[in-house]
């Protein structure tokens, strides 16, 4: 009934700290955007150019057309390939991850399958350094011929993000009272049916959030792609390294590429902002 209306306001010192923080946070963002619209001559100047007088839209255009830059005897890499590859791998990887995750989440949450041990196992899987799993995976893939294939990468993505999806979805399932399923079962539904027909629709929002979260992880993923692809398939993080040409680095287009690549991430992150904490802390902290 009564609010603490005497809420504290941010004092001067608070505002100062806030502004400093904002500047520090936003400067790199500013920098990459600024670089992406700089014409070639202004990439490497000293003192550096902060706000270019002309907006070099060609940086953005070139990365899609792969235009040749005469002065550098090189082509700007065409990014459509990597966008497509990243999209394919991320989307399908996410789908599989969610599929696996939903099943496992029901198992862990509703049936306590695996008892005490399994959640620990799951956590450990997430905490383990990817490189430790990538090396054997690479060996395995070379043996069965999955290196540099869509399936290979999609599988890897699904595997590495399954712990995240399982955990997040499980925490959403936990919030749905089990009584709903039980009453459905009394009405004749089997257990599994009650899972999918009763609870699953109720966590739709959570599923979306988890999917976006996992998608973000996959889209940004670097190490796996680097190790498991050799050129046939190239994802965005990998391709962003290829802006080094004979005479230097194509800062402008590279930054433009970076900006373009990030846009979906920012959009998705804003959408799932509410659930970020839950995903990042294994559901230990809910907002």
């Amino acid at each position: 009934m009564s609010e603490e209306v005497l809420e504290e306001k941010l004092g001067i010192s608070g505002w100062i700290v806030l502004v400093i923080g904002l500047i520090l946070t936003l400067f790199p963002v500013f920098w990459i955007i600024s670089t992406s619209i700089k014409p070639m001559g202004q990439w490497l100047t000293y003192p550096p150019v902060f706000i270019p007088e002309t907006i070099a839209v060609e940086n953005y255009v070139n990365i899609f057309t792969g235009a040749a830059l005469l002065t550098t005897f090189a082509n700007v890499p065409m990014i459509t390939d990597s966008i497509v590859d990243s999209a394919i791998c991320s989307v399908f990887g996410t789908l599989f991850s969610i599929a696996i995750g939903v099943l496992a989440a029901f198992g862990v949450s509703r049936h306590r399958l695996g008892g005490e041990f399994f959640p620990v196992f799951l956590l450990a899987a997430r905490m383990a350094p990817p490189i430790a799993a990538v090396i054997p995976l690479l060996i395995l893939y070379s043996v069965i011929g999955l290196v540099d294939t869509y399936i290979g990468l999609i599988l890897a993505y699904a595997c590495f993000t399954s712990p995240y999806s399982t955990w997040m979805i499980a925490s959403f399932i936990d919030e749905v009272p089990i009584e709903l399923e039980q009453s459905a079962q009394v009405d004749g539904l089997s257990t599994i049916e009650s899972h999918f027909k009763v609870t699953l629709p109720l966590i739709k929002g959570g599923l979306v959030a988890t999917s976006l979260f996992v998608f973000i992880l996959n889209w940004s993923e670097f190490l796996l792609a680097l190790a498991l692809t050799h050129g046939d398939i190239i994802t965005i993080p990998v391709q962003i390294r290829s802006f080094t040409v004979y005479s230097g680095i194509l800062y402008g287009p590279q930054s433009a590429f970076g900006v373009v690549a990030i846009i979906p991430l920012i959009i998705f992150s804003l959408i799932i902002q509410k659930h970020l904490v839950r995903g990042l802390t294994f559901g230990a902290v809910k907002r």
Partner: protein
Amino acid sequence: MRTTRNWRQKLSDFIDNPKNRFLILLGPIHVVLFLVLLFPFLLMIFLSLSGWEPGKIAWWLAQFNYGTGFLKVFGDARFIWSLARTFLIVAPAVGLEFVFGLIGALLFSKAFRGKKLIATLFLMPMFFMPVVVGYNFWMIFQPRGPLNYILSLMLGGAVEIPWLSERSAAIAALIISDVWQWTPFMFLIMTAGVLSLPENPIMAAKVLGASDWQIFRYVKLPMLKNIIVIALIIRFMEALKLFDLPFIMTGGGPGFHTETLSIYAFVVAIVSGRLGYGSSVALILLILFLLIITPAIRPILRRR
């Protein structure tokens, strides 16, 4: 009359059998985990014990060297250094992220205009792909780049810190970049924690005469302890895996002075092509992590 059960009903029966439930629900993820944890583990043990270098000879031809390859890792100076270095980067980074995140959370517990917008702005770094962050900071940390330029303006003299090419500066640069990218994470968690603090004890403390600082130190902070611990553990564990940033920014250099554990393993296994030895390294990594993880996980699980 015998009722025949069609395939759909049979499937339903199959699924509903509690014994089969385990198989179906957890089956897929066990496959996953097998691929991600168990299989690598076993394979790496095999590799360590056998000295097989994949790609060079067929596996059944490999001779057993009884783990000498494995033991070599312990004597590998570069490996030990990468271990130390990883901690050297991660510890200050996480520490700073925690402090900044806490400051941010405290600021955001007060009311002010534009809160939502500013909060979103503060969260942005977390949304950037690590590789993009890497390249961005690579540019910023250039000897004749914007950072040095701004420093020159502020300090009055020419500042040309060789951020990326000098050992300690490179480590500092990595710490700075990591802090930039992950402070929002701590900030987010801390804010969630601060928001979840019950109102009444804080008001009670006020009426009892405590100043804001006293309230923070004696009331809020102790109540936040659990969340703080969890946040630190999670962030620390994630940070130990550090790969993308150093790889892009310094390539492990100068020389190998910014090689983190993951980078070293990668360099050994994939760049040098010594998958066998690389596996040993990776195996040790895995064991190391598991050793660190097990006590660390308990606070997290308790919360659930």
